[in-house]
């Protein structure tokens, strides 16, 4: 029997796996789970004696390697110096299009979300964009977004070195097929089933008959996560780290989730 694993630990470990082989990962402000995933990847690569991983967290002073103002992230990405980035969306559709602007008829969107931020650029130029959205509902995963902040794929004549590599939600992990312009279900998180995923997803996706369960982190990985990574995380996201620590303490008292 494996030790009890928190669902967010699965997410963090999955992100760390998706970042394998990267050298410079950028994470947006207020993105503790992607940041934790990148910190775990960094710790794993360091333990394995591999190439050092650089992690830039926007808005953080601690993890800010930039000295040329807020344009530098985009310049850096344009130079090909950022291997992976995370994007979310108020809506995400089956073609990988994301909408960060608002639902309904533009411009009088209701609700109006903050806006596209750098997505309309970074989605094009960062080689490995990971779509991350914990809420997995038909409200988020729609057949077609109401506004394309950034498209999942582009016409062949368009210069596009980057794009989506995966979609990670609170329920499942998908990969993105650029040629088919669609998602394929890679795994279900522990406790989910295919019918449930289909009901929660407003778009269709490719899938095997019996999709595997998203792998739980190996014990050594989990130890790293609960030790060094959580310590590092506390510096940048103290509230999130404290909450996760409380949840983990509660987990210990509850029966194991993972089989």
């Amino acid at each position, binding site marked *: 029997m494996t030790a009890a694993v928190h669902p967010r630990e699965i997410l963090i470990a999955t992100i760390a796996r998706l970042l394998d082989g990267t050298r410079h990962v950028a994470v947006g402000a207020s993105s503790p789970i992607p940041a934790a995933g990148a910190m775990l990847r960094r710790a794993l690569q360091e333990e394995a004696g591999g190439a050092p991983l650089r992690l830039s967290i926007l808005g953080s002073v601690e993890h800010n390697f930039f000295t040329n103002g807020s344009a530098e992230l985009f310049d850096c990405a344009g130079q090909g110096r950022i291997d992976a980035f995370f994007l979310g969306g108020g809506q995400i559709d089956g073609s990988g299009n994301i909408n960060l602007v608002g639902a309904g008829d533009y411009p009088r969107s209701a609700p109006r979300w*903050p806006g596209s931020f750098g997505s309309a*650029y970074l989605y*094009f130029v960062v080689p490995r964009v990971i779509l991350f959205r914990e809420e997995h509902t038909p409200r988020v995963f729609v057949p077609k977004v109401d506004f*394309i902040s950034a498209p999942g794929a582009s016409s062949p*004549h368009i210069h596009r070195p980057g794009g989506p590599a995966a979609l990670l939600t609170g329920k499942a992990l998908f990969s993105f097929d650029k040629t088919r312009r669609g998602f394929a279900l890679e795994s279900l998180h522990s406790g989910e089933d295919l019918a449930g995923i289909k009901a929660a997803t407003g778009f269709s996706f490719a899938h095997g008959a019996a999709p595997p369960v998203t792998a739980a982190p190996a014990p050594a990985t989990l130890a790293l996560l609960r030790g060094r990574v959580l310590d590092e995380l506390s510096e940048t996201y103290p509230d999130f780290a404290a909450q996760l620590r409380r949840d983990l303490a509660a987990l210990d008292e509850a029966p194991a989730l993972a089989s």
Partner: protein
Amino acid sequence: MQSDLRALARRIEPGMRIALPVDYAGVSMAMTGPMIRHGAGDLHLVCVPTGGLQVDQLVGAGLVKRVETSAVSLGEAGGAPCFNRAVGDGTIEVVDATCPAIHAGLMAAQKGIPFMPMRGLLETDLLAHRPDWRVGENPFAEGEDPIVLIPAIRPDIALFHAPTADRAGNVWIGRRRELAAMAYASTATIVTVERIVDDNLLGNEMSAAGTLPALYVDTVALAPRGAWPYGLWGEYATDIAELRRYAAAARTPQGFGDYMAGLLKEAA
């Protein structure tokens, strides 16, 4: 001090295009009240590259006609209530952009060129709703290679808050070089600062490296804690509780009015 800020606010004329920085770079929140009292409206705000509390308050006060931005929110305190309401009501025009497009427009103005090419953006609804952006061809490519051309953004005024200025009007902006980019691109630059020092900031290489020269700065006024409730890098942290208090209050126009009345009274 308040009279200095009121004098600064009088530089703003109805219909002007005003560039404002992102919430963590140095927002001159101290100028929001004086701007509202001054009352110059029909403003065109350019968020560099996103907006927050100041944009929301100016929109709520009815001074704003148009907002060019990559996003507007209160960050951890949630959506921007007045902005979102105005978008829903159609009382302001939102010109949606993406961060590097705002930077590109300012860079074109900095370089004195009519436009900057930019990757990305093709086949987005952002581009579809920006008739002022054009799609050109990369003449250096072998085959077809469309690329978006972003026209220069030339604000009338850049307004921000910084830690330090000297008597000559040089302003220390540290590594927040988007503040310099705003100033280069704008006709005039208005700055509030935590403190004014006697030493020449250009007098030694260490401080000069992070200094926006007075050449680009029109007026400086003292405003200690002038970014509050936002923080100022290297100086003080954001007052999240106050942002939340505002976010809750501004959920209704009445609540916004009450909050602002309190703020304006304090600053009187």
